[in-house]
């Protein structure tokens, strides 16, 4: 009994239940024909949302007004630059990785630099930075579609033990994020800042250092996702990051992370990412149009946040 109550007390349980329900409904419609294929697709596309979502999760946890709007531009720039320097050669993969990480690092530093130096809300800082990053991406991309190195293309589309490689990677990153959040001093500090920044500072939390690290982390994860996504889809497209702005925030909210900050949870990001993908594919199998899919996504986000606001946690 107490185990059941404990499990149902977790904030991420609803995302997973919804995921399961959508999965079953979709499978029922197709008569079980596409079970494996659907699960594979959900894990693959879910993995990308999970990685960006984790970065956004840490940022949102820093408290009201903290959100990173530069994620799409970062993804596109990192993917484009990495493919460019790798020149489709397997031997240059290391360079591609280095460039990806550097891109994330520089954008993260720039984001927090703007927040701190211009004393502007993070939303405006990351927005104006994203304009510049986006231009840099357009400029480097120039409509030329460079293919990823063969090895990377294979890796990102293949599976190991029946589970897509990108999902494994997302799992590894998630475990690391979970450890940092639940067991690490970093997670404690992020949560403290999100609950009350002044109280956290007066309790000895190095507020600037932690916020800086969080914005850099978010940009790094976005860069890595951009890198993976461009390898997966056979080249970097200019608009490839576009949908991830809304997705990254949506998975954080649906996953049970407090929008007001101070409380985050990693499993919920998985539940929400799979759920969002499955809702779309369920609506697809039922023949719903793109409009209906978007409409429902919006209604779900608003519904979740209104429902969550009723919780007495705050």
């Amino acid at each position, binding site marked *: 009994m107490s185990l059941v109550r404990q499990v149902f007390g977790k904030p991420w349980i609803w995302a997973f239940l919804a995921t399961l329900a959508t999965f079953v409904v979709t499978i029922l419609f197709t008569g079980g024909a596409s079970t494996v294929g659907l699960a594979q697709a959900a894990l693959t596309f879910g993995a990308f949302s999970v990685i960006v979502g984790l970065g956004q999760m840490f940022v949102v946890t820093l408290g009201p007004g903290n959100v990173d709007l530069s994620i799409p531009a970062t993804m596109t720039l990192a993917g484009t630059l990495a493919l460019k320097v790798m020149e489709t050669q397997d031997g240059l993969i290391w360079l591609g990785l280095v460039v990806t990480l550097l891109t994330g690092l520089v954008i993260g530093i720039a984001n927090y630099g703007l927040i701190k130096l211009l004393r502007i809300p993070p939303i405006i800082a990351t927005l104006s930075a994203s304009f510049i990053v986006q231009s840099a991406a357009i400029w480097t991309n120039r409509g030329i579609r460079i293919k990823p190195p063969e090895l990377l293309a294979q890796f990102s589309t293949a599976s190991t033990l029946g589970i897509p490689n990108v999902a494994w990677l997302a799992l590894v990153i998630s475990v690391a994020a979970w*450890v*940092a959040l639940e*067991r*690490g*001093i*970093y997670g*404690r*500090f992020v*949560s*403290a800042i999100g*609950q*009350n920044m*002044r*109280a*956290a*500072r*007066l*309790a*000895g*939390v*190095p*507020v*600037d*250092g932690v916020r*800086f690290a969080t914005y850099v982390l978010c940009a790094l994860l976005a860069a890595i996702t951009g890198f993976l996504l461009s390898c997966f889809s056979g080249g970097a497209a200019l608009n490839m990051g576009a949908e991830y702005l809304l997705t990254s925030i949506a998975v954080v909210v649906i996953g049970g992370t*407090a929008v007001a900050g*101070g*409380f985050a949870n990693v499993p919920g990001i998985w539940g929400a990412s799979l759920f969002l993908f499955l809702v779309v594919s369920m609506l697809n199998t039922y023949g719903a149009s793109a409009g209906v899919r978007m409409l429902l996504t919006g209604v779900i986000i608003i519904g979740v946040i209104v429902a969550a606001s009723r919780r007495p*946690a*705050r």
Partner: protein
Amino acid sequence: MTQGDNPVISVNGARKSFGAVHALDGVDFSVRAGECVGLVGHNGAGKSTLVSILNGGLSPDSGTLALLGRPVERHSIAQARSIGLRCVFQELSLCPNLTVTENTRVAHRSLRGFGWRGRAARLIKDKLDEIFPDNGIDVGRSISGFSIAQRQMIEIATAFTSSDGSVRLVVLDEPTSSLDAGLAGQLLTFVRRFVAAGGAVVLISHILGEVLSTTDRIVVMKDGKVVADRPSAEFSTESLVGAMGSVVRAREARAARDAAASQTAVLSHTSAGRGLDFVARPGELIGLAGLAGHGQTRMLVDLYMAEGGSWRTPAARKVAFVAGDRAVDGNLPLWSIVKNMSVTLLPEIARFGLVDRAAEARVTADWHKRIAVRTENMDNPILSLSGGNQQKVLFARALASPAPVVLMDDPMRGVDIGTKHEVYAMLRAEAAAGRTFVWYSTEMDEVCQCDRVYVFREGEIVAELVGNEISEERILSASFAEKAA
């Protein structure tokens, strides 16, 4: 008695408690038309609670309230406004982004329709000129462009404006705190004129000279009770200070710490020309006294921030902070007691960036016992505790850290007497072991336990009292200026 016998407002036997604290303990208070009443008392005497009851912001636990002689069952802010009661609070309550005229519009619903701006401007301008001649305030400018003194003038003038119905009673809470002597004089002269014309004013001020010279009657409060209520002419500055303080109070025996004076400073703060410098030496218990909001918290926070730690935790931390305003500066409301207690200590008990949860449990269990937090389970949320026990957790948070100096920002607010005595004993033991405490307190008997006391007034240290010099009378007379600065 100029206008009949009915008071504008009167309360009888008003009681109000917040938890264990009796803010008002059976207060009788009334104001008649054509009367200026002074309300004085030390911090926590119950003045602001009384004002909140008068303006309808709070309702008393027991006691009766009458408006214009008629008893009122349920008082409210709207009702208080409707009989013409206005309050000027200490905190700025204008919209900083609006102009003076526009703020007048927000205060008066009837200022609308064609030409409202002109009417509002005339209304406020006339009142400003009436109270503060030659004020030079451009009513078309926004509030954020004005100095604190000008904002206070505008706020006072707004309270006296009337557009739909007359202003009967104005409560002025420290109205002259940021006005210079000339402006304060103009205001007090206006108050006399307003009263002579049949209005009523309640004047709360820490400048006893102006209370004595302006008011007809002075009500002295202490510990939630009215201890004196006599015509102003029967008081002098000395007798007022005497009435506010207790006659004799047995002070806790204090070990002489003269040896401390020779030791080097562990923490210091230079005043940059305003007031005295602040110095703290190892093992000292230093009190910060004076009226609330006169710069004590500000200096504690400055001292804390000056030690760095915003980008990374310093290797050897020098200061820890105990918040008094738990909701704003202290509690991390989503967390358990354990996590709240250990947050300052985390860098010490972490390995490779991971929290050593066994060590965390050990340390917090130890402090659970030492400081007797009343809970069965330390994993309960912090907000499940009573205020006093939350405060104990914040004490443990600071004391568990290795910092040699602990800054305390009036930490005993709303704490029951039993807890207080437990904490006092612990402070003395820790100080004897060499820790320094800088203790801002609004409670006289707490300040009197300290080795050395700095008295604050208007943001600066105005007096330093050592050892046997520390007494309630001396602190009070240093906190209250006799005339406007």
